[in-house]
C-alpha cells in the first residue's frame, strides 16, 4: 500500500481516503440495521478504538498492560464530569457540548498516559504487569473516594446525546444517590446496570463476571425486549426532559454507534499514520532491542512513554464513547474485567496489527452473545452461562499463545507468506 505512492503527503492522502471509505461503508451499514445491531456495532467500534492503543502498546512497543480499562475510565469520567459540570469552555467562553468533553477526555488520557508511561518505562515485565494491574483495580475505586464528584459506586447518569443547551447547573444534582435502590422504576429500564447487574469490586477480583461485566452493564437483559424498538429509546431521553427536542425517527443506538464509528475512524487514521510510518519502526525497534535502538539514536524511554500516551489517548476516547453508549459511567463499567478483555481481544485478534484490533473487538462482542445463544438452546444454568465466555477466552488465549502467537491476523499473514514465499510484513 505504501510502496505504490511516493510523494510528500502520500500517507496522509492514502490513509485518509482509506479511513473515509471505511467510515462511509460502516455508517451505511449502521443506518440499515436494527437498534440492537447498532448497539453491537457501537461496542465493536468502541473496543476497536481502545484496542488500536493496545496494539501500539503491547504489540509494537512490547509493554504489557493489564490496565487499559482504567485508562478508559479516565476518559469516561472526564467526559461525564466535564459534560455535567461545565457550561462554557474555559478561556474561549463558548457554550459547552459533548465534543468538548471528548476533547478533554482525550487530553486527560494523554496526560495520564504520560504519567503512567513515565513510570512504566522504568519497569520490566512482571513489575509493569503489576503496575497496570494496580491501575485496573485502583482507578475505578477512586470513584468511591469522591462520591460527590464521581458518583461513588452507583456512578453518574448522562443524557445522551449531550442535551441541547447543556445540563442544568450543578446545584440541581444530576447524579443518583449512592444507594442503587433509589433508582426509580423508570430509570432502571435505562441502559444502566441495575442493582443486580452492578458488579461489586469483590466480584471483579474473582472475575465471576468477567468479561460479561460490560455486556451485562450495558444491556441489563439481552432478551427480546431489547430488540423491540419501543423499548430501545430508553437511554435517558425521557429522564432529561429533552425527549421532545428529538424527532421521532431518532434512534439513540444508531446515534451512539455513529459516534463510536466516527471516533474509531479518527483513531484508526492516527494509528495508521503512526504505525505505518517511522514511529511504528521506532516502537518495534525498541521492543526488539533497546540497546541497539539507543545506538541508532532512538531514546527507548521516550519511545515507550509515547506508546503509553498514544494508547492512553485511544483508551480515553473509547472510554468517552463507552460513557455515551451506556449513558452512564461507574466503577463497575470500567473494572478489571474490561482491562483483561482488552488484552484478550488484542491477543486473539493479533497484537501487531491494527486489523487485529478490529477483529478482537468483533470477538469480544460476538463471543458472549454466541455463548448466550448456546446456553439458551442448551438450557444451561446462569452459573454456567455467566462463566462460559471466561472459560472460552481462557482456552482461546492459551491456544493462541501456544499455537499462533500472532493471533488471527498473524496466522493469516503467515499463511499468505508461506504461499507467496515472502516475509510477513506485519501491520
Amino acid at each position: 500500500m505504501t510502496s505504490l505512492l511516493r510523494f510528500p503527503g502520500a500517507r496522509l492522502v492514502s490513509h485518509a481516503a482509506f479511513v473515509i471509505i471505511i467510515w462511509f461503508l460502516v455508517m451505511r451499514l449502521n443506518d440499515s440495521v436494527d437498534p440492537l445491531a447498532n448497539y453491537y456495532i457501537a461496542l465493536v467500534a468502541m473496543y476497536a478504538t481502545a484496542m488500536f492503543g493496545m496494539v501500539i502498546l503491547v504489540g509494537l512497543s512490547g509493554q504489557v498492560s493489564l490496565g487499559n480499562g482504567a485508562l478508559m475510565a479516565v476518559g469516561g469520567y472526564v467526559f461525564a464530569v466535564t459534560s455535567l459540570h461545565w457550561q462554557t469552555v474555559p478561556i474561549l467562553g463558548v457554550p459547552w457540548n459533548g465534543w468538548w468533553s471528548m476533547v478533554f477526555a482525550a487530553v486527560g488520557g494523554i496526560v495520564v498516559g504520560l504519567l503512567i508511561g513515565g513510570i512504566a518505562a522504568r519497569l520490566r515485565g512482571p513489575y509493569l504487569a503489576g503496575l497496570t494491574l494496580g491501575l485496573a483495580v485502583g482507578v475505578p475505586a477512586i470513584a468511591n473516594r469522591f462520591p460527590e464528584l464521581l458518583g461513588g459506586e452507583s456512578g453518574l447518569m448522562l443524557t445522551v446525546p449531550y442535551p441541547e443547551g447543556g445540563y442544568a447547573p450543578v446545584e440541581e444534582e444530576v447524579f443518583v444517590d449512592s444507594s442503587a435502590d433509589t433508582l426509580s422504576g423508570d430509570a432502571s429500564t435505562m441502559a444502566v446496570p441495575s442493582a443486580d447487574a452492578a458488579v461489586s469490586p469483590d466480584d471483579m477480583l474473582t472475575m465471576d463476571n468477567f468479561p460479561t461485566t460490560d455486556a451485562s452493564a450495558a444491556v441489563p437483559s439481552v432478551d427480546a425486549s431489547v430488540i423491540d424498538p419501543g423499548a430501545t429509546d430508553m437511554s435517558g431521553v425521557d429522564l432529561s426532559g429533552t425527549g421532545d427536542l428529538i424527532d421521532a425517527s431518532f434512534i439513540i443506538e444508531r446515534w451512539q454507534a455513529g459516534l463510536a464509528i466516527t471516533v474509531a475512524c479518527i483513531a484508526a487514521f492516527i494509528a495508521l499514520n503512526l504505525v505505518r510510518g517511522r514511529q511504528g519502526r521506532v516502537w518495534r525497534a525498541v521492543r526488539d532491542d533497546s540497546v541497539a535502538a539507543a545506538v541508532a539514536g532512538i531514546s527507548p524511554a521516550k519511545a515507550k512513554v509515547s506508546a503509553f500516551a498514544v494508547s492512553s489517548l485511544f483508551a480515553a476516547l473509547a472510554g468517552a464513547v463507552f460513557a455515551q453508549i451506556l449513558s452512564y459511567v461507574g466503577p463497575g463499567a470500567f473494572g478489571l474485567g474490561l482491562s483483561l478483555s482488552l488484552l484478550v481481544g488484542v491477543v486473539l485478534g493479533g497484537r501487531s496489527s491494527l486489523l487485529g484490533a478490529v477483529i478482537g473487538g468483533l470477538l469480544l462482542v460476538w463471543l458472549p452473545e454466541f455463548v448466550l445463544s448456546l446456553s439458551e438452546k442448551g438450557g444451561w444454568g446462569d452459573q454456567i452461562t455467566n462463566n462460559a465466555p471466561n472459560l472460552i477466552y481462557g482456552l482461546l488465549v492459551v491456544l493462541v499463545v501456544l499455537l499462533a502467537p500472532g493471533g488471527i491476523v498473524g496466522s493469516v499473514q503467515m499463511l499468505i507468506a508461506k504461499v507467496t514465499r515472502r516475509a510477513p510484513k506485519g501491520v
Partner: protein
Amino acid sequence: MRYVLPLTDPVLSTRSICVTLSGLRILDDVSIGIPKGTVTGLIGPNGAGKTTVFNVISGFVKPDSGEIRVDGRKLKHIHPHRLTELGIARTLQGVGLFPSLTALENVMLGGSSRVKSGIIAQALAMPWTDTEQADLRERALAIMTELGVESDASRLPGELPYPIQKRVALARALVSDPKILLLDEPAGGISAGDMADLARLIMSWVPKRTVLLVEHHMELVMKVCDLIWVLDAGKVIAAGTPEVVRQDPAVLAAYLGQEGAA
C-alpha cells in the same frame, strides 16, 4: 607503567577511566587517544575490557572516575541515544539488528538523529514527514549499495547470512554520517574474502572519518591500523604503531597467556 602517547589533539580520548561492575574492577585508569583521521585499534585478549571502553564512551556504563573528551571538549552526561548527534556512531559486538524490521528499515533507523519531526506531525502524517523519510531512505539505500547489500533491502535480518547481517549493521552505523566510528569486532564470524573487503572499506573512510576498531583478527588490525592500544585485564599495557605493538613483550605475554588458558 602508563602508556600515554604524545598525541596532538586527539578527536576522541578517554582520561583515566575507572569502571567497577559487580564489585570487579573492569577498567583501571584507562587513558587512550584516537588521532583525527586515523584508524586506531583497541586490542587485547577476551575479557580485557574493550567493549566496556565502548560502553563508557557511548554512555551505557558510567565510569567511577575519569572523563571522555571529544574534540577536546569534556562530555557531561552521555546519553547513548544522543551519541550520533555528537557525530559518533558505534556498532555492537555481534549484530544487534532489529529482527522484525527489514534490512532497509534497520539502516534507516540509524539516521534517527536526522529526523526532526515529532510524534504529532507523524500522527497526522504531515507531508514533510514523508519527505524526511524519503530522504533517509535514499541515504540508506546509497550506503547499502556502497556496502553491496542493496539487494537485501527488503529482507528481514533472520533471512540473511551472518556476514551480510554484519554489513547491514555497519550500514546502520554509517547512515548518521559519523565523524567517529566505533567498531566492535566487525570481522567476527566472517570469511577471509569478506575481511579483505572490510579492510578496504575501513581504509576508504579515513581521513574523512576517524575509526576506533576493536578486533581479534590480528591480520586485519595490523593491516588497517595507524595506531594500536593494547588492553589487558582492564589496563593499557602497550601502545604504538602495529610494528611496535607486534613485538612488545607485554602484548605477546598477554596473548600467550590467553592461549594458554584457552
